[in-house]
């Protein structure tokens, strides 16, 4: 059962349909499925609903898919870094469903875990709660949020073996595991495909059962805010805890 495909476009072949719901991993530009987004642009698939914490920036990440107007609706928590997004949203071309970040992550995980709804305190008393079921537990009010069941998940990991067992690196993990879980089909891009048996089974972050197709490729990994501190003495030194 081969999961490894030759390119992002090949890996998406047969999976795309106008109007579909796609869940994407990534936070800001960190850990986003760059190659699969490019392949979506090339495919021309349209009227997409995309569940992703952010909407990329102008010209990179999901921003590319907005420029081509392939996205009809975003489900996100923060879209502040994207002028084209703002233009389309304010002109009514693009629908936007704001989700608190933790609610969005939990909705993805819930969908992946067969949980159609869960209660949370997040957003009670705000616009987020409008139209949602309210319920009391132990005298406190919670709102019902629904699981996200995506037609397709696109995610990015650091390394995976041929069976799709994947590991992530540092904060590039973020939304990738919950996004992968909630996809009926999940396509993953990685920096390196390694032989089966070379990842410690105790270190797998996302078991291969969640990954249906897999590609390896080169990633730009653009940095959104390059912040540094002066090097005290000019020599290389790692940040260490006191």
């Amino acid at each position: 059962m081969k999961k490894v495909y030759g390119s992002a476009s090949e890996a998406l072949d047969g999976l795309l349909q106008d109007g579909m719901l796609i869940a994407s991993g990534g936070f800001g530009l960190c850990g986003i499925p760059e190659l699969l987004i490019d392949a979506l642009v090339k495919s021309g698939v349209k009227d997409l609903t995309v569940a992703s914490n952010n909407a990329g920036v102008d010209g990179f990440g999901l921003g590319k898919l907005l420029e081509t107007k392939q996205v009809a609706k975003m489900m996100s928590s923060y879209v502040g870094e994207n002028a084209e997004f703002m233009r389309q949203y304010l002109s009514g071309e693009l629908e936007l469903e704001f989700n608190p970040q933790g609610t969005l992550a939990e909705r993805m995980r819930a969908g992946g875990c067969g949980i159609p709804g869960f209660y949370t305190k997040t957003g009670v008393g705000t616009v987020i709660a409008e139209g949602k079921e309210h319920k009391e537990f132990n005298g406190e009010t919670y709102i019902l949020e629904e699981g996200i069941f995506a037609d397709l998940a696109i995610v990015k990991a650091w390394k995976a073996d041929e069976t799709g067992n994947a590991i992530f690196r540092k904060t590039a993990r973020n939304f990738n595991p919950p996004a992968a879980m909630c996809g009926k089909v999940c396509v993953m891009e990685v920096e390196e495909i390694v032989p089966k048996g070379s990842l410690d089974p105790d270190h797998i972050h996302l078991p291969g059962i969640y990954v249906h197709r897999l590609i390896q490729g080169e990633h730009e990994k653009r940095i959104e805010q390059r912040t540094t501190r002066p090097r005290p003495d000019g020599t290389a030194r790692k940040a260490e805890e006191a």
Partner: protein
Amino acid sequence: MPWDRNQMAARAAEELEDGMYVNLGIGIPTLVANYVGDKDITLQSENGMLGMGPFPFEGEEDPDLINAGKQTITELHRTSYFDSATSFGMIRGGKIAAAVLGAMEVAENGDLANWMIPGKLVKGMGGAMDLVAGVGRVIVVMDHTNKHGDSKVLKACTLPLTGKGVVDRIITNLGVLDVVEGGLKIVETADGVSEDDLRAATEATIV
């Protein structure tokens, strides 16, 4: 004299106790990290990290290692990474002892508005709604008034809320206020700021 940004951050740092896991928002709250001194504080970055370190040295930036403000950062010996569902699980589950956040408006009932100005600013709430709903203690750090001189400490918020009745303590350039039954209580004032000065600059009920 009212406190400056660094003095406000230093005052906010006094709120943090040894052993606490803390989330610091963007802006002045970020500066709080500079004033924790010897206290054993672990900073959470809600994009999936506990034990956030300082900015990297030039040339050591790692695109896979950023904070919730998308800035490059570093790790520490105590650091752990996890996914976003787990990260907000610990926030929603009350495991984070305190969040220090900026605000556009705070009301005397603890309402907080810090994510949206209708028709003007539509960036999104990010993780702010989860934080104020979930963490043990919400400390707001902000200027007492806006650039027009109007109080940001109000009887009722006018902007869309981030959370209802969620704020515990407000630290502004003029002093420190607690949200209590019936309104706000003055905890202290900045050096040279009298209680009357603070009352005069505050729209909210002070009890």
